[in-house]
Each structure stands twice: as C-alpha cells, then as structure tokens.
C-alpha cells in the first residue's frame, strides 16, 4: 500500500469502503500491519471492525506501479474462491480490489488461525492430533482440486503444462542459469523417458507442499499460495508434496513429512482422485527435486545479477547440492 506511507488514515478508509462493498453494514479498519513481502507481493494483517465485532483479515497486493511476477491477484482470488466452492479448505476471499480503490492489485481474505511453519507442526507434540489428520485432509483436498477440471477454469487462462513441457521449461531455466550440474543432466535424460508426453491434465495447485498449509488444532485449515496453479498432471502435486525438501527433515515419512506413500495414495483414490501410477509418482518425486534445485539456481542467479541481491538468496543457491544428493539416491535406489 504505497499510499499507506504518506496517509495511512486515507488508505484504511479506502480499504473500509472496499469491505463495505463486499458485506452489508458498517466496517472500520483499525490497523494494517505488514507481515511479509518482496518487490511485487505484499501481505498485510488487517484488523477491521464489522458491526462492532472484530474481523481479522489478510490483504495481499501487488503495489501500484508494480506488476505481479506471475499470476495476477484477481486470478488468484478467483481460483481460491472456486477451490473453496469445490470443498477445498481455503481462506475465504472477501473482496477483490479494483483500480478505482487506489490500493494496488490485490484481494482481501479471511484470516485463518493456525500454524504455517511446517517444522513446527511436523514435529511439535502439540500438533500430534493435527498431524494424524493431515493424511486424510490433504488427500481429500488434492482430490477435490483435481476434480475441478481444466474446463471450469478455462476463463482464467492459466498456463497449460504437460509433464514434458514442464521438463523443457525447467531445462530452459537451467540453461539460462548457465547450469553445469551432471546429476541434473542425468535427471533431465531419465525424466524425458519416464514422464508422459501429455496424460490426463487437470487444474493443479502447483505448489502443494507442507510449507503452504495453515494447520489448526485438528488438521488442515487452509491451503495457501495459489500463484503457481496451472493446468498440468495431477501427479505433479503429489510428487511435489513428497519431494524430500518438503519433508522438512521428516524423511521417513515420504509424503509431506507426515504420511506413508501407500496410505496417502489410497486415501487420495478413495477421495475421488485418479488411480495413482506408483512408478510415475516416483518419477514426479524426482521431478520435484529437480524443480526445487533449478529454483535454487534461479535464486542464486537473481542475487548475482543484482536483481534481488540478498544473503538469503545467495545461501539458498547452495541448497542445489541437497537436491543433487536426493536425485542421486533416487537414481541408485529407485526411491528416497
């Protein structure tokens, strides 16, 4: 909120009018607190009062004058709403900003209580009950996302990526980063053989992993970060969830750090998901490690180009060797 710096009162009033457009009655905005963000994405906690009752919200925007890296916030809001309508646990979208609101491109959603730091909910005793529920909750959410179908989101013009197109896109990024990683070269060659050219594509979340869940006392409260959603192979979501990096050290539980493969596949199928090709699911786990490895390289390149110079980006680039080790282990032993 650019204006917030010069006139916070006016920005709060503008936001209150946006909210009044969405719900009946009087709304005041008491505080807008920055939570996190980079150049193109800002997240705020919003403390509002609706008809005398406290109303906690989250505002996510691309600031005025900036363009979103990928998906527009309006498309993200639409997806989140449609996923919610399909029974997926998401934060309910309250209002989408318009250019006339003068607050940037973005939307307001309901604040969902819970833990977002995966290492906490994956390990702490306080989350034992929630953890036990995550297998069924995530399997059901994924099955429901994948049942929405590409036709139902055709108007949103999401990218369509077959598994092979996904692999080619990764290779292009790897080449742009001047990658010289023999293990990645082997993975590209192996996956070019193992991944199908097309397959039964569906709407997929694209970033479905233990770091993108809000976990409440009894299990999954919301799936967040829909920016990488696209039309692709459903097993990409399962493979990404099972990628060793996103087990956050709970390596013995291959799915997200909280579930066994067979139990998860069975729950996904029982919830209406398509039959899981076990061998192909493992190929998608390798694709997950390769994808994260290339993302790490990209962060290193962004640091070196001066685009986003930061010690954090530079350090993340050193996580490439983790993904190389994971891929090597898979190449030697079939699964990690």
């Amino acid at each position, binding site marked *: 909120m650019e204006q917030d710096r010069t006139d916070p009162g006016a920005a709060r009033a503008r936001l209150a009018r946006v909210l009044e457009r969405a719900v009946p009655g009087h709304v005041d905005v008491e505080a807008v607190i920055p939570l996190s963000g980079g150049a193109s994405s800002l997240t705020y906690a919003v403390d509002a009062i609706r008809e005398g009752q406290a109303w906690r919200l989250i505002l996510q925007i691309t600031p005025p004058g900036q363009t979103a890296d990928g998906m527009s916030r309006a498309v993200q809001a639409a997806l989140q709403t449609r996923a919610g309508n399909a029974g997926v646990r998401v934060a309910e979208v309250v209002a989408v900003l318009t250019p006339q609101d003068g607050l940037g491109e973005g939307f307001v959603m309901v604040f969902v209580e819970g833990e977002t730091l995966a290492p906490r909910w994956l390990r702490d005793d306080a989350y034992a009950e929630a953890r036990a529920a995550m297998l069924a909750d995530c399997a059901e959410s994924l099955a429901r996302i994948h049942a929405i179908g590409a036709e139902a989101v055709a108007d949103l013009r999401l990218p369509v990526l077959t598994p092979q197109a996904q692999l080619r896109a990764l290779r292009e990024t790897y080449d742009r980063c001047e990658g*010289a*990683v*023999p*293990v990645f*070269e*082997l993975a*590209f*060659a*192996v996956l070019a053989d193992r991944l199908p050219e097309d397959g039964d594509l569906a709407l997929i979340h694209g970033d479905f992993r233990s770091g993108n869940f809000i976990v409440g006392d009894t299990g999954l409260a919301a799936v967040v970060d829909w920016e990488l959603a696209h039309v692709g192979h459903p097993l990409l979501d399962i493979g990404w969830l099972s990628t*060793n990096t996103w087990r956050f*050290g709970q*390596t013995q539980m291959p799915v997200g750090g909280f579930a066994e493969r067979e139990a998860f596949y069975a729950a996904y199928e029982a919830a209406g998901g398509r039959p899981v090709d076990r061998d192909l699911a493992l190929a998608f786990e390798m694709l997950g490690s390769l994808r994260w490895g290339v993302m790490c390289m990209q962060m290193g390149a962004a640091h070196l180009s001066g685009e986003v110079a*930061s*010690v*954090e980006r*530079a*350090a993340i680039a*050193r*996580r*490439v*060797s*983790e993904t*190389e*080790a*994971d891929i*090597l*282990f898979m*190449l*030697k*032993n079939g699964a*990690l």
Partner: protein
Amino acid sequence: MRSRIEAVDLVEAAAAFLKEAEGELSGRMAFHAKVATNALAIAARELRERPGAVEAEALGALLPDVPLDERLAAACARIRSGAWTLETPGLLDALEAGVTARLAVDNPRFSTLQRLRGA
C-alpha cells in the same frame, strides 16, 4: 606458533563475530545475520575442503585427457548428448564422490548425505 592469518581464519573470525552480533538483533535483521553466519561457515568449509577439486578428480578415470577445470562441463555435455547414461560404468560413483564432497560443505547435516555414505 602460527601467526599468518589465512582466508579461512578471517572467514571464521567474521562468522564468530556475526554469531555474537545476532543476539543484539531482532526480527528480519536477526534472521539475516543467522543466514550470513551460516554462509560464512559454508565458505570456511569450502576453503578447507576444496570440494571442487574432489569433484574434478573423481571424474578423472572417465575423463583422463580433459583438464581438471573442464571436466564438469565435459561430463554435462556427454550426458546431454547421450554418450553417457546411467549404465556408464563408474559414472554414478564418480558423481556421488563430487556431490557428497560439495554437500558436506554446503550442509553437512543433510540426511541424504548420511544415507548416501551409509549405503
């Protein structure tokens, strides 16, 4: 008594200072100080262990005529062209020697490092 300060000594001294300074910081600054301390620890291990040399030497049996600093690129080119595959004798072991050497520098506590070394 040794008195000459090597690069690795400087890096370790700076890392020790940053670790101390971290306690005085909060929020984002404290987080970045922690990341910076870790980055210096990686640099210190790299100066000591020289994993790049280990990696190049491990490819020596497969690429005896290729100079050390060109072996990584040569290995990539051979895999990409299809000349080397998973079945190429010695390839996976050579790559593993290089990867584990680098990973021991980047993140010595990473679980797959122990699993590869144990296997």
